[in-house]
């Protein structure tokens, strides 16, 4: 349970990253959203065996991470969470698809193995694309952009406020579980029979709290936000970035650049 607070600071650490300054941070949120979506769709639309065609897609995360000064550890840690389920699906391919694709020396490599690595690779690429988007776009800009894109107002407000409340709630849950642990003897975690009142208490307490926080937000003009939402014009850099990312993604998707490299190498060898 000690990791509760760790998880929370992990949540808000992304926001701290997003308030840094870099050429990527300065871009229009819309251009970053479009680039991310195009990237993911292109990656995902490649089939589960095209490891080599996926390879050039590694350029986007690596370059943007460098430009925006994002620590790699942040991506790795989160990718690890996403991996198990994908690895499970990938491993099953190793078992069910045994036709040999090629040999490395005398070691046979099956199609299943290729697909296993492809799935892992896809996972890493998709995970980094999403995390990069959030790490270089301040939360307020992100929600403002969603509003401009006419995502239902109610959904954005709930999203925004849930995000804010998590901090309060986790702190509350943390002190409650500490108090519980101090009196629980050597038991690990909350007992299931106590879970109802433990979680229920936490919930009801938070309800009142939530209304007060919301009142405080309204007192400082939260409700006016919509009316004041100004259009944010795209600048030259935004167009360049979007075009560069989207075109290269589509190129890598349509033309197997990696295969061409392989062919060249093959002829040389």
């Amino acid at each position: 349970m000690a990791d509760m607070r760790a998880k929370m600071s992990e949540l808000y650490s992304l926001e701290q990253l997003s308030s840094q300054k870099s050429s990527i941070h300065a871009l229009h949120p819309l251009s970053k959203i479009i680039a991310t979506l195009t990237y993911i769709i292109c990656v995902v639309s490649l089939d589960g065996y095209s490891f080599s065609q996926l390879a050039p897609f590694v350029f986007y995360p690596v370059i943007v991470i460098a430009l925006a000064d994002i620590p790699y550890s942040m991506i790795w840690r989160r990718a690890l969470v996403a991996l198990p389920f994908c690895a499970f699906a990938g491993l099953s391919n190793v078992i069910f698809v045994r036709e040999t694709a090629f040999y490395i020396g005398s070691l046979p490599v099956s199609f299943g193995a290729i697909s296993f690595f492809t799935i892992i690779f896809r996972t890493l690429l998709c995970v980094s694309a999403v995390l990069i988007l959030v790490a270089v776009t301040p939360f307020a800009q992100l929600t403002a952009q969603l509003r401009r894109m006419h995502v239902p107002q109610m959904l954005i407000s709930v999203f925004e406020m849930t995000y804010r409340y998590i901090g309060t709630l986790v702190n509350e849950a943390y002190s409650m579980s500490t108090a519980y642990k101090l009196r629980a003897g050597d038991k690990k975690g909350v007992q299931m029979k106590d879970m109802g009142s433990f979680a229920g208490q936490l919930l009801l307490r938070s309800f009142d709290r939530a209304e007060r926080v919301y009142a405080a937000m309204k007192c400082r003009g939260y409700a006016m936000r919509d009316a004041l939402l100004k259009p944010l014009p795209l600048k030259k850099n935004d167009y360049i970035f979007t075009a560069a990312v989207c075109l290269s993604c589509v190129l890598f998707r349509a033309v197997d650049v990696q295969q061409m490299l392989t062919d060249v190498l093959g002829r040389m060898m």
Partner: protein
Amino acid sequence: MLEIKNLFVEYPDKTSVVNDFSLTVKDGESVALVGANGAGKTSLIMALVGILPSKGEVIADEITLSKNTENDIRQKIGVVFQNPDDQLFMPTIYDDIAFGPRNMGLDEETVKRRVNDSLSRLNIAHLAEKTPLKMSGGEKRMAAIATVLAMRSPIMLMDEPTAYLDPRARRSLIRTVNSFPHTRLIATHDLLFAAETCDRTVLIKNGAVLADGKSENLLYDEKLMEDCGVEAIGVYDRGVKL
């Protein structure tokens, strides 16, 4: 100027919390709103900015409170909440103070100026990049006040500002509040604080005005204070004040 005329506030279950309350606070005046727990102080404050529905009239600097003017009146009246944790919810204090001005649609340059002004005014510039989760009670109180200062509203309502403060933080809060140019209404049951920050005191009981007059007269009146449900300032404390 803040004018409250015949204000009534009811909870959804029809219990009445504010009952025919009337009060006028003149420009630059500082008024203490003193009453026991449950006397209706917080509900009154929430009603003045339209968070709680009310009947009656509230006029702040010529704006009359109604469904359509809620947002305008919230620019005129700043509220410092009882619990600073309710007010601080952004990742850093800077963002928290900027929250109000940003909602007002100001450009980033102006927002920055306002934030820095508020911070330096309260001598807490060093807190700008800190997160509220890791701050002391006193620091959080100052930060919460800074969020309201940045709104530049002419009227300020404070709800139990000395709650969660140690004596030293409380002392510095008294100095700070006294330096404000705002029209102030301060709800509290900390009578010494009321005596040091407000010339005028209004006693509230069961949501209605019990007495209204000079702080030095009311706050030391043991019988009146007993009736109001709070303990009058004792002889010993009086010595401290002088």
